[in-house]
């Protein structure tokens, strides 16, 4: 089968019993009739029996340092490292070096 967009050959993959065609050129994906629904169904099954996520590891076992009431909800009240990982690089170079 040829990709309808870039005309490169498409390869067939089997994902949990669903046939998926992926283009070797533009990496686009072609789904046959009913396959999207089948994937959605599988996704729902996959997420339902999953156990509840474990509590986030306590990055700061001691109480977080005091912060003002107008601070961000995460501003030291919870040691949420994910948030800082996300913001950290951007705010560091962007904000922490200018007047």
């Amino acid at each position, binding site marked *: 089968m040829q990709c309808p967009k870039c005309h490169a050959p498409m390869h067939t993959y089997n994902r949990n019993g669903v046939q998926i065609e992926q283009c070797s050129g533009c990496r686009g994906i072609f789904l046959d009739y009913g396959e999207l629904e089948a994937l959605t169904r599988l996704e729902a099954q996959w997420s339902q029996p999953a156990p509840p996520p474990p509590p986030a590891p306590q*990055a*700061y076992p001691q109480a*977080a*340092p*005091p*912060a*003002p*009431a*107008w*601070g*961000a*909800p*995460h*501003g*030291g009240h919870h*040691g949420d*490292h994910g*948030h*800082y990982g996300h*913001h*950290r*690089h*951007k*705010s*560091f*170079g*962007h*904000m*922490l*070096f*200018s*007047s």
Partner: protein
Amino acid sequence: MTADTATSADAPADPLISALTAQARTAVHGTPATCPCVSTPLAVRPDATVVRHAGAVAKAHAPDTDPAALALRVATATRLPDVLLPPLTPAPAPLRDPHGLLVTLWPYGAPVDRDDPDAAPWEAVATLLARLHRTPVPAGLPPMRGPAKAARALDRLHAALRATPHGPARPAARPVLAAWAALPAWATARAPMPGPAALCHGDLHLGQLVRHPAPDGPWRLIDVDDLGAGVPAWDLARPAAWYACGLLPPDEWTRFLTAYRSADGPAVPADGDPWPALDVPARALTVQTAALAITKALAAGRPLDEVEQALADACARMPSAPAPPGRRAPGIPD
């Protein structure tokens, strides 16, 4: 001597940069002859132009700089070489070009790496601030300019709002203006700062630190333009504001605060909650930073990015957050 990066490094024909380069070159070689050294503009901003030539840095100060005040500030840097980077020449000199700006000459120092948050010298900056704050204020030194700079940032925001009647960043301005209006008069430069006054840097951020001699000498504070007598908590308030707004992780804030207290810094009590002392300056610097961010976003016709939005959101929460007790010094007008 500055850690600011160039904003227009590709302007070799600029007469101001050429004149500054000549002064830095003379400071290095003692003669205005040509040499193989590389000259680099380190900062080109309305309030300062800074050029490096080999081991020397020439800084042209803002056009409205008071010569006597700058001379006192530079003299303070000369007297405190363990805290402030000492200048190459003892006094500011007028630039030999039509601008008539004041120029100071400094040794080059290696800045903090903007791309490596883990290498930020939180302990060093805290210890330097504690030492600075424990130094008796030199006679005649004018007030620290932190509140005046915050007021200037709000002036710029007002001007940008007038110049840009539409723009995706406009809605963010209302809570920032409201938070500013709720600050005590001293924090907005409408009244003198409460005492007792300490020697303050006045514009602390991570661009105000260099290692001298480069690359691994001790850290020193640079940029004395805002140095003066005032509320020392102002110098802690940027890191405090970054922490409060979720931009600085709690462990880095704790390292900074702990090192400041270990060095007997007088801006906050030795233990317990530091926020009664930090609250007003940290609010002011959050408002100032948000105002400058909105000003930039208005000029660019863009919405705030997520970091800038975090600052504006903090301003929006301020009215409902009571100030901690003891925020006002007794007898100080609010």
